[in-house]
C-alpha cells in the first residue's frame, strides 16, 4: 500500500514574521525556512504506518525550487521518494489540490496524509479540497489513525472534544498536533536521503491552471497591544479587577 504525503516549505515555526514595509507580504529573505510542522506530523504518521502494511511513502512539494530541501528532510525522516513540482507563481490551495489530484491519478496511493493547515497562510483547505476533487472521504484534524481492512478509522479533534469516523479507502487524512511526535532525521539518514529519487516536474506538466483566484491587495501588521501595568500583590490585583467591574 502506497501513501502520498504533500509537504510545504514555510517560515520556521520559531521565527517571528515581519511584515514588509511596502505592505506586499511577509519578509522571507534570509530567514530560516522549515517543513510546515503539521506536515512533519504527516510524514511521521506515514512512517509509523509502514509497520502496518504501508510499503511506499511518496512525498511531494509544490512551490519554489528550494522546496527540494524540505523534500530531502522528509526523505531523511524515512520517506522513499519525492516529487518536486515547481511553479513560477504562488500556488493557492485550490491549485495545489488540483495538482495533487493529478499526482494521485498517476501514483494511485490508498492514503494521502496532509498537515491540516500551513502555518504561513493558515488556510486549512488543501486536504478537504483534494478529497472533494477525488470524491474521497476526509478524516480531518486527526489525533489517531488506524488502518483497517479497506477502511481507515480516524479520531478527529473537534470543537467539543473528539469524534471518530471511518472512511473507505482510498481516503484523505489531515493531521492535528497531537497525532504523534515527529522524529528527527539522523545524520546517516540525512546522508542516505541525498541519493533517494527526487523527480522534478512543473505545474504545467500536469496541465493544471494555477492562476491565483485571490489577489493580495495589502498586508499589514495587526494593531499592537501595549503592555499594561504590573501589580505588586494579589490585593492590588483584586482592587484593579474590581475597579474594572470584574467579579464584584
Amino acid at each position, binding site marked *: 500500500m502506497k501513501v502520498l504525503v504533500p509537504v510545504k516549505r514555510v517560515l520556521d515555526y520559531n521565527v517571528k514574521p515581519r511584515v514588509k514595509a511596502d505592505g506586499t507580504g511577509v519578509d522571507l529573505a534570509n530567514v530560516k525556512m522549515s517543513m510546515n510542522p503539521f506536515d512533519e506530523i504527516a510524514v511521521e504518521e506515514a512512517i509509523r504506518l509502514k509497520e502496518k502494511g504501508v510499503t511506499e511513502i511518496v512525498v511531494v512539494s509544490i512551490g519554489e525550487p528550494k522546496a527540494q530541501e524540505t523534500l530531502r528532510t522528509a526523505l531523511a525522516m524515512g520517506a522513499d521518494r519525492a516529487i518536486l513540482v515547481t511553479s513560477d507563481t504562488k500556488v493557492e490551495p485550490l491549485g495545489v489540490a488540483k495538482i495533487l489530484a493529478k499526482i494521485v491519478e498517476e501514483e494511485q496511493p490508498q492514503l494521502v496524509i496532509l498537515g491540516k493547515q500551513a502555518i504561513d497562510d493558515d488556510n486549512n483547505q*488543501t486536504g478537504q479540497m483534494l478529497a472533494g476533487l477525488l470524491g474521497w472521504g476526509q478524516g480531518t484534524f486527526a489525533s489517531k489513525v488506524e488502518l483497517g481492512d479497506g477502511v481507515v478509522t480516524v479520531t478527529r479533534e473537534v470543537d467539543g472534544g473528539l469524534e471518530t*469516523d471511518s472512511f473507505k479507502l482510498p481516503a484523505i487524512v489531515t493531521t492535528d498536533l497531537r497525532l504523534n511526535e515527529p522524529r528527527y532525521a539522523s545524520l546517516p539518514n540525512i546522508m542516505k536521503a541525498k541519493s533517494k529519487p527526487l523527480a522534478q516536474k512543473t505545474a504545467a506538466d500536469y496541465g493544471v491552471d494555477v492562476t491565483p483566484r485571490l489577489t*493580495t491587495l*495589502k*498586508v499589514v501588521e495587526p494593531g499592537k497591544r501595549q503592555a499594561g501595568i504590573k501589580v505588586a500583590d494579589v490585593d492590588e490585583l483584586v482592587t484593579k479587577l474590581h475597579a474594572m467591574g470584574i467579579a464584584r
Partner: protein
Amino acid sequence: MTANLKTLVWVEHDGSAVKDATLAAVTAASQLGEVHLLVAGQGVDSVAQAAAKIAGVGKVHVADDAAYAHALAENIAPLVVELMGHHDAFVAPSTTTGKNVAPRVAALLDVMQISDILSVESADTFTRPIYAGNAIATVQSSDAKKVITVRGTAFEKAATEGGSGEIEAVASQGETGVSTFVNAEIAQNARPELTSAKIIVSGGRALQNGENFHSIIEPLADKLGAGVGASRAAVDAGYVPNDYQVGQTGKIVAPEVYIAVGISGAIQHLAGMKDSKVIVAINKDEDAPIFQVADIGLVGDLFKVVPELTEKL
C-alpha cells in the same frame, strides 16, 4: 456597507440549539447581502425554528435526513453545492465543522475559499489573518461565487430574536457512502463555552499536572463564572483535553477578561487570545512574553497567588 449577494450561511448546531458561532457568520453574511440559512441534521425542527428567529434572516433551508445527522463533510458538501445553484456566497463559521465542510464545497464549485475572515471590505474583498495573526492580509476574490469562513470573534453576534425567516424543506442528496460516523466523546461541561465566555481562565505548562490544573485553575474559574482554557503545552502534556486549547490551531477567543496563569505567551498562543478586552497575566518569570500583551501583570508563584486570588475575589 452592504453588497448585493445572496448568501447561504451554515447553521452550526448541537441538534437542539443554534451555536453562537453561527450568529457572527450571519452578521458577516448580512454585510454581503441577503442572508439565507442552511440547517442540516436529523430531527432539527427546533433548530430550524430558532434559526428562523435570528434577526435579518430570509429563507431557512432545512435538510432533515439521517445522512446529515453527524454533519459528515462528504454528505453535506453535495447538499451545499446543490443549493449554491441559486446562491452567490457560502458562509460558514470557522468551527471545526465549518473548516471541514467549506473547502470541500469550494473545490466542488471550483472556487478558492477565503478562510477565517476578519472583515468584509466589499462584495469581493476581505481581510484575514495570516502567520498566526502576525499579519493581516486584504484579499480580493475573482471567483464568481464565494466560499468564506468567518472568525467568530471578529463580528458582532446577530440577535437571536426578531427575525421571521421562511422555513423551506430541501431534498436530501443522500449518503455518499465513503464515510461513517463511529462515535464522539464530547465533553459535558457546565462551564461557559470558550468561544462565547465573558471571562476565561487559562492555564499553562507551569501547572505541572492535571491535578494542579483541577485544583488551582478551576476554582478560580468557577468563582468568576468563567470558561476554562489552556495553552498547547498544557494540552500536549495531557493536563486537559484538546477542546481546551486556545491558540493559532485551537480556539480563537476574545472574552472581556482573559486570565493567563503560568502561560509564557508563545506567539501561537497569543494568536488565539490577543483580541481579549482585558488580559491578566500571572507568571513567575517577569520576562515572560505574556506580559508584553497583558493589561495587568502579576509576577509571582501561581501556586500561592491563584488560591489567594480565588479567595479574595
